[in-house]
């Protein structure tokens, strides 16, 4: 038996380090690694489930091709690659290479993902997507304000006196953070949750403010007004480091009484909350990503930012606005969110006209050339992209779709050809984290089963077949030694980080500020924290100041009485992991949750099938009556596969956020009814 140190590369805050015990190419055990101070107790249930996932009998380990009858048939790797060469070659010759869509999701992070770029560039360019389904509105809001995106190291949270968890549910989506939150609480810190739902995180809190979905910006503006009116702000900090205070002060017009009308929070409680923030520092705000997946999402985050800035809760221990910490993303030439923008890589021969948020509609509306083929890796757009019906139609229109995946996902089922994808233990890679400050190495520890190849090797073999002129420096030859050499070369120039060091232990990002902005230097145009941002106005056409734009529903939308929320849960990373046996056994059955009052009004009982619908589409799912859901809300986690009653995107219109090219997932209303 051998033991290795590795790290989890999923799209998750925690990016846990863990030890893995291996024997005869089998994963035996997953154990914690205490050397990573952010995740000393080890990974969550999903990380533990790799024992099953890597060796799952459901895993696709041979290429599959769709027959004329619509079923999949196993074929050899060589035949599969020949088919791809012929199909893509012909489509490129007939329609041009840009008739092919190269779609990448966030299924597995790592530097080796860049190798795909080299292939498709050599291929002649493709159509790719811009924007991001997850978090860019908030990222852009933070970037506009601070100039860079970082926060204190996770373990500094224990020094806070007040923690405000605003639209985040770390008990399920960032479970290692709970240890620090409780650590702070046991030292006397007050824990406040602001959320439309009673989340499992709220079970750990002192206070829960149940806002109406989408109104958080109004709440923050009212609190900011109370802070200023009651002189609870840090004048010195504002004078030295903040641009736009006077403009902001004049613009603040939402009183607590008005905010009560908008948010549902009584004005006296808004004042109470303001006093806590103003008087009980240091304050750390932990904003989630859900509240920025709205048409007013970027401005909402800018409103929340005011509270940290006005009270001087920036650049100090126990304080901060912990949206994302990109300090470990040192290898990126262009950091998020800038890398998401359509014009970010002008020199690349990609034509970026396809919006992530409006994937289906944009695919259908693409001409000269029309889209004829797609290559999908690390993603599940049929399930996870907004407006499922249009996405399905767009993919059905294609002549040839390749999906690289480990399982028969809802997207893989749409493929003409499926290539089996590597698991996390089957190729070496280097990953950063958007929460912890570590750069980590993820070694190859087992041989892939069957005919599984990592994408880098698929691309190498395909490049050979297509006679593409591309050097081994860009697409390394097969073999993990070559990948490690490629990685070594990729990180030269960052002298503080070497591959050997990374193999020893996780490495703190060079230049790390454990206390973000402790130097009080901000990479904004003015060099100060910008509450007034000209860039916001010029780039996005929004107000240079944070403001609250109310939720405006059309009369058509008003017919659907429920707000529809699609959170993430502890048992999944979006659409990953939910298919595993161990996850099914230890988690509640997927269900759409509704409040007891709404349920009794519609004679719905737990366990019954109900139809959820609106003008975009419909789905049928098992109902669960929950005390955690206030009246007027319908809650169904995203990422549940179609066959389990999931597919929230049937009900979600493809729309972008105000800034950052994100997807406005949470702006949809629905109606429900019993299915008898």
């Amino acid at each position: 038996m051998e033991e290795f140190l590795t790290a989890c590369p999923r799209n998750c805050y925690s990016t846990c380090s863990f030890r893995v015990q291996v024997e005869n190419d089998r994963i035996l055990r997953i154990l914690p690694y205490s050397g990573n101070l952010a995740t000393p107790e080890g990974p969550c249930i999903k990380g533990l489930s790799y024992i099953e996932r890597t060796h799952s009998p459901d895993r696709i380990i041979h290429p599959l091709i769709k027959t004329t009858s619509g079923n999949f048939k196993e074929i050899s790797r060589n035949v599969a690659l020949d088919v791809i060469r012929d199909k893509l070659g012909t489509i490129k010759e007939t329609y041009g290479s840009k008739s092919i869509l190269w779609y990448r999701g966030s299924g597995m992070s790592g530097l080796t993902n860049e190798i795909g770029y080299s292939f498709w560039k050599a291929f002649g360019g493709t159509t790719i997507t811009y924007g991001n389904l997850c978090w860019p509105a908030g990222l852009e809001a933070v970037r506009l304000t601070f100039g860079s995106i970082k926060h204190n190291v996770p373990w500094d949270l224990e020094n806070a006196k007040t923690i405000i968890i605003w639209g985040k549910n770390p008990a399920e989506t960032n479970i290692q953070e709970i240890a620090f939150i409780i650590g702070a609480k046991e030292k006397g810190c007050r824990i406040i949750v602001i959320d439309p739902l009673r989340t499992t995180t709220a079970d750990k809190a002192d206070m829960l403010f149940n806002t109406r979905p989408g109104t958080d910006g109004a709440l923050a503006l009212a609190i900011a007004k109370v802070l200023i009116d009651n002189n609870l702000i840090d004048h010195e900090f504002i004078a030295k480091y903040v641009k736009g205070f006077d403009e902001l002060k004049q613009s603040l017009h939402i009183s607590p009484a008005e905010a009560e009308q908008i948010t549902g929070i009584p004005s006296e409680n808004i004042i109470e909350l303001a006093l806590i923030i103003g008087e009980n520092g240091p304050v750390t705000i932990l904003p989630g990503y859900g509240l920025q997946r709205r048409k007013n999402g970027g401005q909402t985050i800018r409103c929340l930012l005011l509270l940290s800035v006005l009270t001087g809760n920036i650049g100090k221990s126990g304080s901060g606005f912990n949206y994302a910490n990109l300090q470990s993303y040192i290898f990126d030439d262009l950091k998020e969110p800038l890398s998401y923008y359509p014009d970010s890589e002008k020199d690349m021969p990609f034509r970026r006209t396809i919006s992530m948020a409006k994937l289906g509609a944009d695919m259908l509306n693409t001409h000269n050339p029309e889209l004829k083929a797609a290559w999908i890796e690390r993603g599940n757009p049929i399930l996870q992209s907004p407006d499922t019906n249009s996405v399905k139609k767009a993919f059905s229109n294609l002549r040839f779709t390749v999906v690289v995946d480990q399982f028969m996902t809802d997207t893989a089922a749409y493929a003409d050809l499926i290539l089996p994808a590597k698991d996390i233990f089957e190729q070496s890679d280097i990953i950063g984290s958007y929460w912890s400050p570590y750069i980590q190495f993820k070694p190859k520890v087992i041989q892939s089963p069957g005919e599984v190849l990592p994408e880098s090797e698929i691309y190498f073999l395909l490049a050979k077949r297509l006679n593409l002129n591309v050097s081994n420096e860009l697409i390394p030859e097969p073999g993990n030694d070559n990948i490690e050499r490629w990685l070594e070369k990729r990180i030269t120039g960052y002298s503080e980080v070497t591959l050997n060091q990374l193999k020893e232990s996780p490495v703190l990002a060079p230049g790390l500020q454990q206390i973000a902005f402790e130097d009080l230097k901000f990479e904004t145009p003015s060099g100060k924290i910008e509450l007034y941002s000209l860039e916001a106005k010029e780039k996005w056409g929004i107000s240079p100041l944070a403001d609250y734009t109310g939720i405006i529903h059309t009369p058509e939308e008003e017919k659907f009485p429920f707000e529809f929320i699609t959170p993430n849960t502890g048992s999944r990373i979006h659409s990953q992991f939910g298919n595993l046996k161990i996850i099914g056994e230890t988690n509640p059955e997927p269900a759409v949750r509704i409040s007891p009052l709404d349920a009794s009004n519609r004679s719905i009982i737990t366990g019954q099938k109900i139809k959820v619908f609106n003008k975009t589409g419909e789905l049928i799912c098992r109902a669960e009556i929950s005390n955690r859901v206030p009246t007027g809300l319908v809650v169904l986690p995203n990422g549940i596969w179609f066959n389990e009653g999931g597919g929230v995107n049937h009900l979600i219109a493809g729309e972008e956020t105000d800034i950052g090219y994100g997807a406005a997932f949470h702006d949809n209303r629905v109606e429900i009814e019993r299915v008898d």
Partner: protein
Amino acid sequence: MRKGFIFNHNKCVNCNACSAACILENGWTVHPRNIFTYNSQAEGLIPLINLSLACNHCESAVCMNGCPTSAYSRETVTGAIILDELKCIGCRYCQWNCPYDAPRFDSQNKTVAKCHLCYSELIENRQPACSSACPTGALKFGQLTEPDSDKVFSWFPDKKLNPAIEFTANQNHTPLKIIPENIYEEKDTKPDKEGRNITTDLSLIIFTFLATISVATIISSLIKGVFPEKIFFPLILLIAGFASFFHLGKKLRSWRSVRNLRNSPLSREIAAFIVFALVASVSVIFHIPGLIIASSVIGLILLLLIDSVYIYTDRSKSVILHSGQTFISALLIVSFISGIILPFIFVAFIKLVSSVHSLYVKKLNSTNFGIRFLRIAFLFVPGISLILHNSNTDRPVIFIFLMGELLDRILFYIDFNPLNINTLIDNKLNIERDEKKRC
């Protein structure tokens, strides 16, 4: 010093990593570790507490002492209580005995399965899979330092068994403050059913009821000096014995069930039944009067042992002096069949008081009201017949009388409550909910 689980409920968010790690490490088909949540429905105004629990490897291991087959043993190095599934007959008596709901019935293997503390890992100085996997540090394993700590939940089974578990955080009495108040329109989460589900007890009901009748028949025949029917009587014993097999997961291993006579009331009950059945049958078939006396004595002992099986595990004292106890029933039947009025009135009065008391204690709107009412009514039929008409041979009366006793036995199983963590949570939650409503 003793080692055990150390738990901080503040850090437990019910993520189930502990439970999953246990299954992944050991390949169970059941869940030996589970999260018990106080206020699992997240009712407002009541704190919500998660508790991760598997076996606590108690110093006084009632699972082990009660096990009729001696399938449990204590591992010497770690002190872990280990269940040998190859010896388990799936009688599930340990599930009654354990207040922590640790033994789990594996419906695939038809035996019980239980946490073994990953003892082979512990011996090599590693951690159990569950505590090693806890991502928040809520569940740890190590030296217990405060065995008498008062940091314990009001709904945790009392620690007389000396479980190897310790709590490091005080129970939090302040519930979450929700703003705005009353935003959650809560459903009534009170359970609508009282008592246990007795479907799995059906074979036990038949077994114990027929044993009661057999013993009563033998004693009555002694009093009357008439031998019971030669074929019918042994047949009833045969059916009783046969019925008792049905609740076992592993019927072919049932011979093991008398291997713990020293400690297990269940072993003793089974042994007594076998002896009684043999002696009584021989005496009836071959008409040996001396053996009738012997089997009467053995029969009474058997009934006391049957009752002791339930009293042994009855932490809620739910069936002490229950009208459906086999010994009491047998006395009533004997006095009726033998036509001795005074003892009949005495025993019937005890039964009446006990039954009316149950009817009063359990709410009148309960689902079992009908059965309780019938039970009382059926007691009056033989009473009137015997006392007013001095008659005890009317077949319809005997039938109604025995039906009443059968209902009593069924009620015994409904009322029998081997209090464990689940029932304790429910009870405490009911009290707390009522208190909040009154405020």
